[in-house]
Structure formats: structure tokens, C-alpha cells
């Protein structure tokens, strides 16, 4: 029975399963392939009728135009890339540290009310993030953070899922490691930083991926917190590029921008894939 899987793979019936799966892969991959292919199309291919799916003579021109040409406003596209990259990276770093510390405390300190706090965190997994947007807007505006980078950072550090996942992971690390370190005279913070964190590498790598993806793609927060053109992030800019009248010059830049916005998340996931898979089994909830 242990060799069950291998035996079945040799079975010729499985070619049906493989073809079926590859067909599904085609459905998931087609829009992505089109997106990539279009980003490299020269002008004449962008406006062909009938439209052509694959690029024939790939060019970097769309990218060069996107990055060098200025809009009617004076803000270069690279500024939006910086805004997205900067706020995303700060959120990722802070959420990893804050969630890991909190999760360590809940998992290993047997705090009074620790369970209550954890149950609230589980309940918070069921909140749609949009529910909190209105008060968040009021709080951010009261704190004077509207139209600053902080508005895109501070509200997004404490994510229920992040501390939940870290806690699940840290919980299965045996207490003996911590006790041994304590006997050797290590202080709490040192135990956290030198023992727990290295052992949780798959878990916080996973947080990096998820936090990167959700913040990089976030459309709602910048939409309500940011009015200043210079502070806008990529999803907002894409939306306004797309919403503009269908100028010929813009379609190429648009395709290139779509490519630039879409690829980083896929690349980040690809790099971290095996660590993510190691961690995800801990995402189960015991009801």
C-alpha cells in the first residue's frame, strides 16, 4: 500500500487524469500567458485585427515608454513602483516580527486570558476585512495619517491570520528547547530570536509570501486613505490608466504595467513554494 501511488502512476489509465489536469492548467494559465505575451508586443501587433494571442516580434519598448515617459502630471511611474514596494516591504517586516512575538507569547507562556485572546483571533478570521474599513478610516484620519505612507502600513500589521499561523507552528516546537536554553542562561528575547525564529523559518517565510501578496495587490486601503497623486500605489494607478480613454499610446504602457504588477507576487511565491507547503498544514482550525 505504501507503493500504491507509484504503482498507479504506471497505470496507463492515468494519462486521462494527466490530460484533464493539463487542460485545467490551460484554463488557469491562458490569461497569464496572454498578459506576458502582450507586454512585449510592438504597436502594430497590439492593434491587429483580428487580435493575435502570441507576440511575434517581442520588444521592450512598452516598458521603456512606461518607465521614461511622463504623464500629464509630473510623477514618473517609478515613483508608484517605489510606493508599492516600500509600503509592502515595511508591512511585511513589521507583521512578521509583531506576529511572531505575539504568537510565541500565546504558544509558550501560558498567559492568563491567552486562550481568550486566541479565540478572538480565530473569530477575527471570519471578519471580512471590509467591515473594519470605516472605523479604520476614522481612526487613521484622527491620528492624522491620511495621505501618508503610515496609513498604508500601521493598520495592516496586526493580521489575525498571521499570528494564528505562527502560533500553530510555534506550538509544536517542544518546550525542552526553551527550557534547555533557559538553563544555559538565555534571556527571553534571546530565546525568541536565536531559537524560536530559526526553527520557524518555514512559517515566517510563508507569512512573507502572504503578506507580500495581499499588500502588493491591495486596492481598497490606498483607495480610501490616499488622495495625493505622489503617494498612490500601483493598483490605483493601474485602475486610472485603464479607466482613461483608450489612447493608442497607452495600451502598450498598460500591458507593460500589468506585467510589472502581476509578476512579483508569482515570483515571490515560486521562490518560497516549498516552505509555504511545509507550513500550510498548520493552518487547520480545530472547531
Amino acid at each position: 500500500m505504501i507503493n500504491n501511488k507509484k504503482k498507479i502512476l504506471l497505470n496507463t489509465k492515468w494519462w486521462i487524469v494527466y490530460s484533464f489536469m493539463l487542460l485545467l492548467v490551460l484554463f488557469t494559465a491562458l490569461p497569464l500567458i496572454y498578459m506576458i505575451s502582450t507586454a512585449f508586443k510592438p504597436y502594430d501587433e497590439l492593434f491587429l485585427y483580428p487580435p493575435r494571442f502570441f507576440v511575434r516580434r517581442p520588444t521592450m519598448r512598452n516598458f521603456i515608454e512606461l518607465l521614461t515617459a511622463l504623464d500629464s502630471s509630473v510623477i514618473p511611474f517609478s515613483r508608484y513602483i517605489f510606493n508599492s514596494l516600500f509600503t509592502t516591504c515595511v508591512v511585511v517586516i513589521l507583521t512578521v516580527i509583531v506576529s511572531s512575538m505575539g504568537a510565541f507569547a500565546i504558544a509558550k507562556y501560558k498567559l492568563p486570558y491567552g486562550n481568550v485572546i486566541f479565540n478572538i483571533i480565530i473569530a477575527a478570521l471570519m471578519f471580512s476585512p471590509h467591515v473594519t474599513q470605516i472605523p479604520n478610516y476614522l481612526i487613521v484620519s484622527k491620528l492624522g495619517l491620511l495621505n501618508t505612507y503610515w496609513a498604508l502600513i500601521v493598520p495592516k500589521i496586526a493580521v489575525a491570520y498571521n499570528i494564528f499561523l505562527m502560533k500553530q507552528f510555534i506550538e509544536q516546537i517542544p518546550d525542552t528547547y526553551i527550557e534547555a536554553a533557559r538553563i544555559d542562561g538565555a534571556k527571553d528575547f534571546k530565546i525568541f530570536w536565536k531559537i524560536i525564529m530559526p526553527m520557524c523559518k518555514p512559517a515566517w517565510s510563508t507569512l512573507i509570501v502572504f503578506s507580500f501578496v495581499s499588500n502588493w495587490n491591495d486596492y481598497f486601503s490606498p483607495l480610501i486613505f490616499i488622495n495625493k497623486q505622489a503617494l498612490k500605489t500601483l493598483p490605483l494607478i493601474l485602475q486610472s490608466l485603464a479607466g482613461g480613454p483608450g489612447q493608442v499610446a497607452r495600451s502598450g504602457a498598460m500591458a507593460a504595467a500589468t506585467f510589472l504588477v502581476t509578476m512579483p507576487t508569482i515570483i515571490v511565491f515560486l521562490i518560497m513554494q516549498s516552505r509555504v507547503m511545509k507550513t500550510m498544514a498548520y493552518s487547520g482550525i480545530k472547531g
Partner: protein
Amino acid sequence: MAFKKFWNNYGIGYLFLLPFLILFTLFVIIPVLYSIFLSFTHYNIIQSPKFAGIENYRILFTDDDVFLIALKNTLIFAFITGPIGYFASFFVAWIIDQLKMRKFFALAFYAPSITSGIAMSVVWLYFFSSDRYGFINNLLIRLGIISEPILWNLDPKTILPVIIIVSVWMSMGTGFLVFLAGLQNISKELYDAGAVDGIKNRFQELIYITLPSMKPQLLFGAINSIVSSFGVFDIAVSIAGIPSPNYAGHTIVAHLYDYAFIRFDMGFASAVAVILFILTYSLGKIFMKVLSSKDE
């Protein structure tokens, strides 16, 4: 004295938890409670909130036709994409788990759900473009199935189906990864024991061993897909616009956004948020009951 003892025992622990707790309280707990409070008031940000009783809710359900459309759209959307995404995630994960090239398949199915909805809508708008240039219109015309282009994202009849197709494409979310990891973690001995107990085929294995061992993962996936399918916004807005033709792509979150951040009627918008909150939270609770694994 008691405090000192408490501090010595737990002080450091709470210190570790403090940054999370402060931010979580400030940006999650208080906002949820404050939303509930605001939903019973009239509040336009400039003047302080005025108590209004259940007025906002009454208007929502009796006078606000657009909300009822949004509610209907969201429910249709959620009850189609939610289950499709959920079952497809599990089914695909279950098959992939038995195949070679697991990593490749996992990436191929997961990649769409980490793309930006806003960015990919550019591609989707090309696929579903309403003129002859649109990929699908073009294909259908050339195949002779239609003679005039279909107004995919302009015709109220096709807007919601298009949003649903795009969302299904993106729906292999976190749940999919959790299922895949969960499947790999089921101990092989369980299957061996099952074979001894007379389990004959893969289907029986699935029903008697795989599904029961995956309850925690199934629960997580369910909550995940409920929250994301009821929160549909980005895709609906970028495909159909806000407001969409005849409100055909209007969703609860779009309504919330409209009243909160375009009209600044925060009390009313909070009532919309509370409805959304009640929907996702109670559905989540139901799944917790159904998939409770305490009995094991």
C-alpha cells in the same frame, strides 16, 4: 505584591504580545465594535454621530432598492463561487496529491489567485471586450456561433456571469494550499489500516479516511472562501465599474464603499458593514459546528 508575582510570571509574555495586541485592538476589535455602534446613528464625519435607532437598517431593507440588488448579487455570487472554489480546490488538490510534478501543478493552479485582480482585469476586459476585438467575441464570430458581438461587461445580463468566471479563475486560494499540505500530512498508516479494514477503492478511502482526517483544514478552507466570496469588490469594480450598468455588478462592499467614501454617510455604510459581518460570521460559525473535530 500580587502584581509583582504576576509580572514575574507573565510580564515578559505580555510584553511580547503587546505590540500585536495594541494594533489588533485599535484596527480590528474597536473598528468592529465601533461599526456596530455607528450603524445605529446618522454620521457624516463633520457633525458628531446622532442616534438613529434602527432607522439605517429599516431603510436598507425597505427603501434602498440598490442595496437589495447588491445583497442579491453578492448572495448569488457567493453561493456560486464559494462552493465552486471550495470543492474545486479540494478536488484539484486531491488529484494533484496523487500525481507527479506536484510542484508544477500547485503553482499553475495557485498563481491566478495571487495576481492582482485590478491588474488582471485588464486581460479579462480584453477577453470579454464588447466589440469585435474582444478575444471571445472574435472567437465566437469566427466560429459562426454569433454574428453580433456580445456586450459582455456592459449588458446587465452578462456582467455577473463574467465576474463569476473571473473569480472562479482566481478562486484556488489559500484553501487550496492548505488542502494540498493537509493531504500530504495524513499518515500512510491510516490508509494501510483502512485497507485491512476492507476499504477497496480510492473513493472509499476519500470518504472514510481522507475527509475525516482533514476536518481542521476543511474548516479553514471554508472560512477562507466564505470571507473572500462575500467580500467581492476589486473584480466587480474593475470589470463593471461603479456604479455598474443597472447595478448589475453592484455588491455589498461596493455599496459600503459608495455610501462611506463617496457620500460620507458613515452610519448608513456601517449598517451595510454590519450586515456583511453578520453574514460571514454566522456562516463561519455554522461551518465550525459542522466540521467540529472535538469528538475525535
